[in-house]
């Protein structure tokens, strides 16, 4: 199993994909900071809950890009055919999937921490530059970082699981982005409150960006999503032929 983990880590490091995703995430967060923190009127940034809500862009970015890392861990192998040599070396496919889940979750933690850190840091500087009183406590920052890292790790697991089921790279990547930025918010506008039980909404509660669900409930439900996606991907991977 150590060998498989090292192999998966090398797969992550030896293409430019992870770096590209990381830089995209940084760019995305920078854009979001500029739009939200600099463009919003001071009245919309005055209370603690307003400010936490603005910080949710960092949580969303961490979750989404971690999900993409997990998805690409599977779909790049399918797309480029490296899944064949991978399974020739390790024909018991369960351990391969397990190694991908672990490594993707680890990369997800890093992505989550960096997205939250970047967002919180930049927004805090922007607040003080505009003379807006910072209402966030040290505990808030801690929950942002820790909750955001856990949420991103679980999204990476969801990404691995879903893409083991779907396998089509474009489909999974577009699907994850659409889900994060369209499906959850749209469904909330039709069924008020529905979004908070969805994977993205749960991550926000976990990182403290929204308070409509306790962090403990949120992490539990998000673990359930991750477990369900992994189980689905697991069964599909063990049963299906490799093209």
């Amino acid at each position: 199993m150590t060998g498989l983990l090292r192999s998966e880590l090398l797969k992550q490091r030896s293409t430019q994909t992870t770096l590209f995703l990381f830089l995209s995430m940084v760019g995305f967060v920078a854009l979001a900071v500029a739009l939200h923190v600099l463009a919003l009127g001071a009245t919309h940034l005055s209370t603690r809950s307003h400010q936490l809500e603005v910080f949710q862009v960092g949580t969303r970015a961490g979750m989404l890009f971690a999900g993409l890392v997990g998805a690409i861990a599977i779909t790049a192998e399918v797309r480029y055919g490296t899944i064949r040599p991978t399974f020739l070396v390790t024909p018991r496919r369960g351990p391969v999937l397990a190694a991908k889940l672990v490594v993707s979750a680890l990369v997800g933690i890093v992505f989550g921490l960096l997205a939250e850190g970047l967002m919180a840091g930049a927004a805090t500087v922007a607040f003080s530059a505009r003379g807006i009183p910072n209402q966030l406590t040290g505990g808030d920052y801690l929950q942002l970082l820790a909750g955001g890292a856990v949420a991103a790790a679980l999204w990476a697991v969801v990404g691995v699981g879903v893409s083991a089921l779907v396998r089509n790279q474009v489909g999974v990547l577009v699907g994850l982005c659409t889900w994060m930025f369209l499906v959850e918010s749209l469904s909330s506008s039709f069924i008020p409150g529905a979004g908070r039980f969805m994977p993205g909404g749960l991550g926000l509660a976990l990182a403290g960006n929204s308070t409509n669900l306790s962090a403990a409930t949120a992490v539990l439900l998000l673990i359930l999503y991750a477990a369900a996606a992994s189980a689905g991907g697991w069964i599909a991977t063990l049963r299906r032929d490799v093209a």
Partner: protein
Amino acid sequence: MKGRRVEPASALRDLADPSPPETVVSCQALSKRYGEVVAVDEVTFSLDTGTVTGFLGPNGAGKTTTLRMLLGLAKATAGEALVFGRRYEELEQPIRRVGAVLESTDYHPSRSGRNHLRTLALAAELPLSRVEEVLELVGLGAAADRRVRTYSLGMRQRLGVAAALLGDPELLILDEPANGLDPAGVRWLRSFLQQLAADGRTVLVSSHLLAEVAQTVDHVVIIDHGRLLAQGRLDELTGNGQTLEDVYLELTAAAFS
């Protein structure tokens, strides 16, 4: 057209010697269906240790599907495909016993050749020094740090061979290794196959390049439309002055006309 006809069933029985050498590959009534389509239809053949066998048949005959079942990538609908008496998935450290070269496109384009081999060596718990050995063996040492997208087809094919040799396996399975190779690449491949045979390794190489195959192999297995047409020693099949091409075309034309 009335040359030697080889009846599949009797040919098989004739060749099943009472004191057989070790059987390395054995397919028993191996079948694969995709819905209505029967890709492989009760194919039975076996390979003895140390033989170099050409796996022949037209495009779409079921060669690749058979090899994928042999290597645990696809599940048989019926029958069984065994290597060293076991299903591929049941082998301990399979790449120490079986090396396979499937498609020359199975690389991440922005990963270097060296890192491609390292991901495999790590997963197989092989020492990374083995990566350097196989890179030298196939002549890719100088190009090892280049991204695979800059490799020519011949270099990709050699990288595939390097991956197959990582575990120093007794059995090598190559699927259409000569496809798209230029004359220099074909010559390299030929001398390479001969070297593998000289080492005493068992080789199964699928191809539809008959002239090329005839120079290298000592046994052939011929299939078409998923069914076994013949298996046996090359010199016996071509015994009365026919070329492998004559025998092959006769069999594939007779079987389904």
